[in-house]
């Protein structure tokens, strides 16, 4: 369970009547309540302002004043994609003479409006945000409803009502909504700009000096709106019944289930590398999958559309048949997976040592291995076949962390410098050097897909 948040209490109170918050968010655990930001007086939250990703998928933006609702804007749409980055802009403008414009929400540049888009009740008075109340990012006063994902570039403009286009723009090449990294905005007395830089996750970059205190463990990740990284796909978690955390980069398997989870990205060509830290024993099945499980008892070692490097005997298994490949691995070992879809081979390393002397294991092409959904794509596969034991897998798809542990000291970048890894993924693969890369959108766009 996430326990990380940023907090501060302004020493000078603003009016709370007008402000804009812009933030980029990649959701973590859906189906739970995730506070994005809040300001309140504590206790029973008699006076508060908050934004929450609710368990239903609704984005709720609202306030309470002396126990009564003071503004409420809730989306009709359900935002349940944990693999996407969203740009969210919240505007509170109680001075606005148009009731419908007193609160605004923009998602990826589009304003949510109308009876089909939002349920809306205009505020009756000023908010608590930017006042001298406890101000939190990722939780609320008292510490609950923790945010479980990743945030980037959080702007708070105290006293100013801006639009989404002040913080983002449409990229002329890709057509995607992208961040303006240095927007021309003013921040006001209690404004701030959080960049989450390494070692300075609570530092205000607005120039206002409104720094936050970090509680819990926040890691700086390379997963950003401009370069979305693969994570463990929470949407694939039906049969596995696992518990995810750390921005969906940590998986605790279900003690009774053996089904696997897949990565959030899949590929048909190119060369890809990722790392997994194992904890739990010898029962790991790490590898690649072209399909998801169809039962809680399914294992990555027995399926026709998966290849698993087995922790217990070091074989590579498909459809229950193992082929001798490398060493066994267990708790504390780091397994590197190298997927070469230009030559249709897979390699594994254990604690940085390439197994089987760099000789790869030939796999079926993505086009010829397919499940009933005719997917024809490979994804990272994480799972165990030990039905009586919970395993913990911490993946690093190049974002630079294992769970809540930031990689420090000597690290290695992939060929394009997009990903950060614990081990050097360079080596000799079947007699030749190959450039393996991190699974992220920058690399997918250039080298795979």
């Amino acid at each position: 369970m996430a326990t990380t948040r940023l907090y501060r209490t302004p020493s000078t109170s603003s009016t709370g009547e007008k402000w804009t918050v812009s933030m980029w968010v990649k959701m973590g655990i859906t189906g739970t309540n995730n506070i994005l930001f809040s300001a309140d007086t504590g206790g029973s939250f008699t006076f508060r302002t908050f934004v929450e990703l609710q368990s239903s998928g609704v984005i709720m933006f609202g306030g309470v004043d002396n126990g009564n609702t003071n503004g409420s804007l809730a989306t009709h749409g359900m935002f349940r994609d944990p693999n996407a980055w969203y740009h969210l802009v919240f505007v509170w403008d109680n001075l606005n003479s148009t009731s419908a414009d007193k609160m605004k929400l923009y998602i990826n540049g589009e304003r949510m409006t109308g009876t089909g888009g939002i349920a809306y009740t205009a505020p009756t008075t000023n908010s608590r945000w930017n006042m001298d109340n406890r101000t939190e990012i990722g939780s609320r006063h008292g510490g609950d409803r923790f945010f479980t994902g990743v945030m980037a570039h959080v702007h708070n403009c105290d006293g100013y009502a801006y639009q989404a286009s002040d913080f983002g723009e449409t990229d002329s090449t890709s057509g995607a909504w992208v961040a303006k990294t240095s927007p021309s905005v003013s921040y006001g007395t209690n404004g701030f700009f959080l960049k989450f830089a390494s070692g300075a996750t609570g530092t205000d970059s607005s120039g206002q000096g409104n720094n936050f205190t970090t509680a819990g463990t926040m890691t700086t990740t390379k997963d950003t709106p401009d370069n979305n990284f693969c994570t463990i796909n929470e949407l694939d978690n039906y049969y596995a019944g696992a518990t995810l955390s750390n921005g969906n980069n940590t998986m605790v398997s279900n003690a009774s289930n053996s089904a696997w989870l897949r990565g959030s990205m899949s590929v048909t060509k190119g060369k890809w590398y990722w790392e997994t830290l194992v904890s739990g024993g010898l029962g790991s099945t790490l590898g690649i999958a072209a399909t998801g499980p169809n039962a809680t008892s399914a294992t990555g070692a027995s399926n026709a559309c998966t290849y698993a490097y087995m922790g217990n005997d070091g074989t590579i298994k498909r459809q229950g048949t193992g082929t001798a490949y490398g060493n066994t691995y267990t708790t504390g070992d780091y397994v590197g997976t190298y997927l070469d879809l230009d030559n249709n081979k897979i390699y594994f390393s254990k604690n940085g040592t390439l197994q089987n002397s760099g000789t790869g294991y030939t796999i079926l092409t993505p086009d010829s291995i397919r499940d009933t959904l005719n997917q024809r794509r490979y994804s990272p596969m994480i799972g165990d076949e030990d039905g009586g034991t919970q395993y913990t897998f911490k993946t690093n798809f190049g974002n630079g962390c294992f769970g809540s542990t930031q990689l420090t000291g000597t690290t290695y970048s992939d060929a394009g410098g997009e990903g950060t890894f614990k081990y050097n993924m360079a080596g000799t693969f079947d007699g030749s050097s190959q450039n393996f890369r991190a699974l992220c959108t920058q690399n997918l766009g250039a080298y795979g897909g």
Partner: protein
Amino acid sequence: MAQTKVTSPGITDSSITNVKIADVAASKLTGALPAISGASLTDLPSETKPTIASISPSVITNAQTAVTLTGTNYVSVPQVQAINSTGAIVNADSITYTSATTIVATFTLTTDGTYYLRVENNDGNAVRSSTALLTVSDNPVWVTAAGSLGSFAGASAIATQTLTCTDATSFAITSGAVATPLTFTTGVGSCTITGTQTQYSAAATSNFTVTATDAEGQTADRAFSMSWSFVIGQGGQFN
């Protein structure tokens, strides 16, 4: 000895000193003449030789090129030749007589090198330049394609950009500019652009022209651009 008219040969060397030669027909003075100290030769035939003072251009490529020769005593229409260091002689493709001081010779010189120029008037008087005035050399040839060098992260040090031009001995930015404070370094055969730009904080494009110059002063221009993009470099993972 009194000055006397010499009418017959057979004078012993050194036996006559301080003699005055008179009434000798010029036609009799052809061939090797003895050194005659204090003698005064008259009635010799006059010669009008052409001269070459300068040419333009002095450096050309292998392509057919018109070279203007400036000098004196050109007689329409002279012959013009280029003579290289191996002795090979190449006649001008065509010659245009402009005036007694200017002629234009058009050459196609397929071999690089330095060339003397020889002008021969149609009366046989000729001149060869005292030095190899004409240089034939290829222009510098750009290897790096014109246009965009790429899109670069605006807040990070760029990978060294190497611009290559065959035969170039120096490079200079002659139009536009790279983003400040990137460093442009000239070299032989290539130049580089390095550093971290701070000029822009939002998406922008720098346009500039690099002129490559070879040892003969020939130049070749190429236009380049560098686009600057600004991305979010990191996020905060709430654990």
